[in-house]
């Protein structure tokens, strides 16, 4: 059991170390609100990364999530503009996101296509549809959305969390339960461990493979909804490159890119680490924001090399 927890431990230690570094170096870093803001500002990334965790655990990858988020914001904005009930609009985009993911999953499973290519094309398609709807930003002024965007849930000591942040935490909790205690979740791990062996064991490999992409699509749509709360607009250029951040969060969170090993909790910490990097840079004030990209790249490199060492001691999945 211990060996499996090692990557997760490394991640948590890193997070704590970064938090400590920030606390020592900057005034006012160590406040509850600063940490809650990590979650608030990255709520949509968190939700998407959770969906991505399942995909990567099964040995696949989903490059379309950023584009699906953008498409979700566009469709939401368009529907709200046309007078749709906000909750109906939310329900519809969730269904659409899930369907989009399921379609990708079907192509991948049925025709044995490379997940990288299929979701790449999916990314093109979703982004293209965004542009087709509109190249301009569509503002959202629906009162319900505005209310949700402004709502603050007090957490104590004057700090508060947004609804988006709450949704993110709920998604993480539900995902943890699915990963640990459900047949679907365990089959995901099994596929990551060895698809042919899992098949020979009689596990529902085919439907689970489609299921992870459906889940990822649904999470992307949910992330898109949360982003609309955050941005109050629909824009085709939202979330460009977000899929890479999601993948980085998952990897930094301790999930092996080859699949089969990892925890959803790790992804949460991966997201928080990405958030803390940005916060540290913002607090510093002198470093330009593109240092974030470099630091994330360096962290990704470090974790990937660590994973290689870890993999070297564990027999490779079949």
């Amino acid at each position: 059991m211990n060996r499996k927890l090692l990557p997760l431990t490394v991640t948590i230690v890193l997070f704590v170390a970064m938090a400590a570094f920030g606390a020592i170096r900057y005034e006012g870093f160590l406040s509850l609100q600063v940490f809650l803001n990590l979650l608030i500002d990255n709520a949509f990334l968190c939700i998407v990364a959770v969906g991505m965790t399942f995909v990567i655990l099964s040995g696949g990858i989903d490059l379309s999530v950023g584009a699906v988020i953008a498409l979700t914001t566009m469709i939401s904005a368009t529907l709200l503009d046309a007078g749709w009930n906000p909750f109906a609009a939310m329900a519809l985009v969730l269904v659409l996101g899930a369907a989009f993911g399921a379609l990708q999953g079907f192509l991948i499973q049925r025709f044995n296509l490379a997940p990288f290519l299929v979701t790449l094309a999916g990314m093109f398609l979703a982004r293209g549809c965004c542009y087709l709807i509109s190249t301009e930003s569509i503002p959202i002024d629906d009162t319900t959305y505005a209310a949700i965007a402004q709502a603050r849930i007090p957490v104590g000591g004057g700090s508060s969390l947004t609804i988006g942040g709450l949704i993110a935490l709920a998604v993480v909790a539900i995902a943890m339960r699915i990963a640990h205690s459900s047949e679907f979740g365990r089959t995901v791990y099994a596929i990551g461990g060895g698809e042919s062996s899992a098949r020979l064991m009689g596990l529902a490999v085919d439907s689970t493979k489609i299921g992870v992409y459906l889940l990822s699509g649904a999470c992307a749509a949910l992330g898109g909804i949360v982003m609309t709360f955050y941005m109050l607009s629909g824009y085709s250029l939202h979330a460009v490159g977000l899929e890479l951040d999601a993948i980085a969060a998952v990897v930094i969170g301790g999930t092996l890119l080859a699949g089969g090993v990892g925890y959803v909790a790790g992804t949460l910490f991966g997201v928080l680490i990405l958030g803390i990097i940005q916060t540290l840079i913002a607090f510093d004030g002198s470093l330009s924001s593109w240092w974030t990209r470099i630091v994330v790249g360096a962290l990704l490199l470090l974790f990937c090399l660590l994973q290689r060492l870890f993999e070297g001691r564990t027999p490779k999945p079949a």
Partner: protein
Amino acid sequence: MKRFTQHMLFWPAITLALLLVASSLFNPSFLALTWRDGHLYGSVIDILNRAAPLMVVSLGMTLVIAVRGLDISVGAVVAISAAVVALMIGGSFSATGEVQSAHPLWVALTTAMAVAAACGLWNGLLVVKAGMQPIVATLILMVAGRGIAQLLTGGQIITVYYSPFFTLGNGFLLGLPVALWIAGSLWAALHLVMSRTALGLFVRSIGGNPEAARVAGVRSAAITLCVYTFCGLAAGVAGLIVSSNVKSADANNAGQLLELDAILAVTLGGTALTGGRFTLAGTVIGALIIQTLTSMIYSLGVPPEVNLVVKAALVFAVMLLQSAEFRQLVAGAARR
């Protein structure tokens, strides 16, 4: 006839031909070529010129894919190369129009290419020595590379005013665009290497079965490193063409989505993502298909946003056609 249709290049060539025919249907003067200002002029020349950077990058990508690898950092390397060359030339505007370059042009060009090659070598080392999956290894540079490019340019768009530099992307030689000459010579050089040396066989062996190739005495590690380095170098050359074309270095946008276009060009041309057999000519055709499509959409007055959707449809179509399961399904349905 059967051998003709089963030739690797058949489908890409037909696709390109159809696109050219369709374009000239929509635009009667599409295939027209005139001689103007001392060079050839026409829509076709335009396509060839714009496709040149993509061709160059895709040629590098072809070899990487052939050894079962992938390089998604090429876009970032384009940006880095553009930034380096722009910095070395210097972007000082002179009212008299007489602009000097901070370094001799050839120094700037070779430095940029050397940096790009170093990026490729970096990727290769991660894959070969650290044993990382190629998509992961190159993902790192893709993420960090743009940051590095932006660091170099200080977040600004550096404009270049040194006119000799513009010939790369805008100049003409013997009537044809210089960029096309660059792409063409790169293709010719690669073709020569493939046909006169054992590199083609070695690359196909490594892509077909890396372990077996090693046992057979092929220096797989060295060759794979060279292939990745070359891919980086190709991206660097493309970066030079691109920045010369727009006379500036834009770290944010240069080479954006280029890796996706390159992979698409390679797969459209007939090289499978699983590695092994590859075709350079197919890649060139693939790059031309993408560019012709883009031009056709633009000239049709269709909003350029449709471009992405069309590319997506193309990728799906190619993937399905390359999938054995799909072909079985279709064959089974056709039999009934």
